[in-house]
């Protein structure tokens, strides 16, 4: 049964792809829910195939297999081949599992949209491309998935393309991703120049003797640039907050659970390369920490429900980068999994709130919704606690393992541990602030808003995700490192960082991180329980800092001034003051020169016969003289 599933592994990609194509050509005319159901069925099926295929890995005896579909670009060792090992299996299950739940949610959420069928085409296409990325057997195919995912995020962010802000956000997302892809392309050039191929098989087990530390560092940093583009880290994160223009299920699927984790997957997959350059690892970790802190601070001062979650995602991704940067790959992947659960839940919850409040996204016009939307309220509550790091929920275990690993690694990583703790507190603060502003306190809705609990189709996934958030943590507790053993074969060639051994240390670590979480939680709870006026002046109290946070340090304007405007001016200069006048001018100049010479020569044609005679004669004389001189 299982080896049948492995042989049919390409179904995992084919199913959503077929779903997308079918819906594209036929789906438009299907009655509304049909398209959604079909799409969800497609991704659900591929989840099942993945699950069955992953059984050998669960029992711990499966080994990595490569399934070759057909040779794509043999000149650079790039074939369409699937690599089925525990890491890609885990990622497939996360993508298809969470994806399935989000598809179901979307059926309810997108109810009444006239491009309903079109939405699910893009959603399925996204699932297919993410699976291509995760299952790729070589960097070229990974790059294939990498860019297709960017395409789908472009299509989905700009889904309501009639809105200029959405269209702009879509373009911005794609261009910023493209800058990351540039880093990826250059990295692949280096890899090809060093190994002569792009296929994993040809790279990882020969990495040691082929790469010098210098080249490895270069490749590592370029991978970081690519990951920063895709997973919205410090230099290239500006597109994610704008990506909230897309429908909420999109934000949940793409900008929380799957696409943004591609960067982490890339670093984890290329562990063998990062192994050779400590500098690259430190940079990754530092960028992660900086992003975590930076985004957390901005999230605190946001009023749009989705913006808070967007910056929270960036911050949590920073955690994952800290983990993989400190070679705690399993901890990073573990946090990736748990984050996928509770962040998807948070986004879907926010989606159901927005849906209920007829597209109102400003938290200041919400409040006291718990009574009206109990299921959404409770499930989001669970997620908020999880992300804050409250034990037994999933967030606690994964975040604690990361912080533990950082602490255990010591040195510079110790500093990052402190940053991690601070971010943990801030995370707890802004998440609780959000929950309290939306569900607690006195209602501040406008008159025409009449919130009601979302229909079953939407609340069901919420409950499922809540369950996963509660159970998810126990997958990799320090007592039974099941995930550790599960991912063992993938990382056996690479040294891995673990949290400090022994009960004492675990208790100490857990205590510190829980304490940080509770501090943030309490502060936000107390501050935002009171009516709006109170916490409004509390916010004014922090004014200079609060203002920066709220406008996200005006990074967008900064980029606009330093990159976009000069770029446009340079382009205009190149086009209108160089290309047209100079080069084109040169060409036309030649034409004008010829006409000018003609003009002057024309003067000689005076019409006077005698002038011609004189010229003729002068010529004759000149000839005679020349003959005489040269004695011809």
């Amino acid at each position, binding site marked *: 049964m299982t080896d049948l599933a492995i042989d049919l592994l390409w179904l995992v990609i084919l199913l959503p792809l077929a779903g997308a194509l079918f819906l594209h050509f036929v789906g438009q005319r299907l009655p509304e829910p049909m398209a959604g159901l079909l799409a969800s069925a497609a991704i659900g099926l591929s989840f099942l195939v993945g699950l069955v295929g992953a059984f050998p890995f669960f029992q711990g005896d499966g080994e990595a297999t490569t399934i070759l579909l057909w040779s794509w670009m043999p000149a650079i060792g790039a074939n369409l081949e699937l690599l089925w090992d525990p890491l890609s299996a885990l990622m497939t299950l996360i993508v298809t599992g969470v994806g399935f739940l989000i598809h179901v949610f979307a059926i309810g959420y997108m109810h009444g949209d006239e491009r309903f069928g079109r939405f699910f085409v893009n959603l399925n296409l996204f699932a297919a491309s993410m699976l291509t990325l995760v299952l790729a057997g070589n960097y070229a195919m990974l790059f294939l998935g990498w860019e297709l995912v960017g395409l789908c995020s472009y299509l989905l962010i700009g889904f309501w393309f009639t809105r200029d802000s959405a269209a702009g956000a879509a373009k911005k997302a794609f261009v910023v991703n493209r800058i990351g892809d540039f880093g990826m392309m250059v990295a692949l050039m280096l890899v090809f120049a060093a190994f002569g191929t792009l296929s994993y098989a040809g790279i990882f087990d020969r990495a040691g003797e082929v790469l010098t530390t210098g080249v490895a560092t270069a490749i590592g940093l370029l991978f970081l640039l690519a990951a920063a583009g895709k997973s919205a880290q410090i230099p290239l994160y500006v597109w994610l907050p704008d990506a909230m223009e897309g429908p909420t299920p999109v934000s949940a699927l793409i900008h929380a659970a799957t696409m943004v984790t591609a960067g982490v997957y890339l670093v984890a997959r290329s562990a063998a390369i990062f192994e050779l350059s400590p500098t690259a690892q430190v940079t990754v970790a530092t960028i992660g920490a900086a992003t975590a802190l930076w985004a957390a601070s901005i999230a605190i001062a946001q009023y749009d429900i989705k913006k808070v979650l967007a910056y929270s995602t960036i911050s949590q991704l920073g955690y994952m980068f800290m983990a993989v940067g400190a070679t705690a790959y399993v901890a990073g992947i573990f946090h990736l999994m748990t984050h996928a659960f509770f962040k998807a839940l948070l986004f879907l919850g926010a989606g159901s709130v927005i849906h209920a409040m007829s597209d109102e996204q400003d938290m200041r016009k919400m409040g006291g919704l718990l009574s009206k939307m109990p299921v959404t309220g409770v499930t989001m509550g669970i997620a908020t606690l999880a992300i804050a790091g409250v034990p037994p929920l999933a967030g606690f275990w994964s975040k604690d393992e990361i912080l533990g690993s950082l602490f255990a690694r010591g040195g510079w990583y110790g500093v990052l541990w402190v940053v991690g703790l601070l971010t943990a507190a801030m995370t707890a603060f802004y998440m609780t602030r959000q929950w309290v502003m939306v569900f607690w306190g006195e209602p501040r809705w406008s008159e025409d808003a009449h919130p009601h609990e979302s229909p079953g189709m939407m609340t069901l996934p919420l409950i499922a995700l809540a369950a996963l958030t509660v159970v998810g943590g126990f997958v990799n507790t320090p007592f039974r490192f099941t995930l550790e053993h599960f991912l063992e074969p993938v990382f056996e060639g690479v040294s891995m960082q673990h949290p400090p051994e022994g009960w004492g240390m675990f208790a100490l670590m857990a205590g510190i991180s829980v304490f940080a979480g509770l501090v943030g939680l309490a502060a936000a709870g107390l501050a935002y329980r009171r009516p709006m006026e109170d916490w409004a002046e509390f916010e004014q109290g922090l004014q200079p800092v609060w203002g920066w946070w709220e406008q996200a340090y005006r990074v967008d304007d900064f980029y606009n001034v330093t990159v976009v405007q000069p770029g446009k001016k340079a382009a205009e200069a190149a086009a209108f003051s160089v290309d047209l006048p100079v080069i084109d001018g040169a060409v036309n100049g030649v034409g004008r020169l010829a006409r000018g010479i003609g003009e002057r020569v024309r003067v000689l044609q005076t019409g*006077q016969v*005698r*002038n011609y005679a*004189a010229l003729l*004669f*002068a010529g004759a*004389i000149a000839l005679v003289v020349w003959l005489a001189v040269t004695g011809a």
Partner: protein
Amino acid sequence: MVEAVLFVLMAVAALTGAVTVVLARNPIYSAIGLLGTLFSVAVIYVVHLAHLVAAVQVIVYAGAVLTLFLFVIMLIGVDKSERRIETLPSQRIGVGAIAILLIAGVVAITVFGNFEWVPAAASVIDLDATNGTVAAVAEPMFTDWVLAFEATALLLTIGAAGAVALAHYRRRN
């Protein structure tokens, strides 16, 4: 000795004729000047025993061409003397310069020139009497130069036809 005297006389006659052609105010006088030059050159041909050429010169040139000139002058009206003003000032200066240059050149050649252009100049071979006669000239013309001969024949016919076409005065109403 006679040849030298004849040469000087004829040279003077030719040059005065030429000058009158150029400087005469009235075209008639320049025509007469041309006639003088033609005759003096004809005499020189005789000196060179080129009798046929001399005869042709006199008959064709002096006879036909010159009379044609006179005829046209009469047709156009002899009193059309040119206005004195010179429309192309630059022309005069230019021509003057060229003239001086050339005269200097000719003088220089005649005085210093050793005529290396004319290889056998030194030895003057005495042409026998028959040389200049019609047979001697005709023989090469109809053997080596027959093609040129036919070409000139064609040229003349075209010239004649052309002249008639050009000058034909269609009576336009």
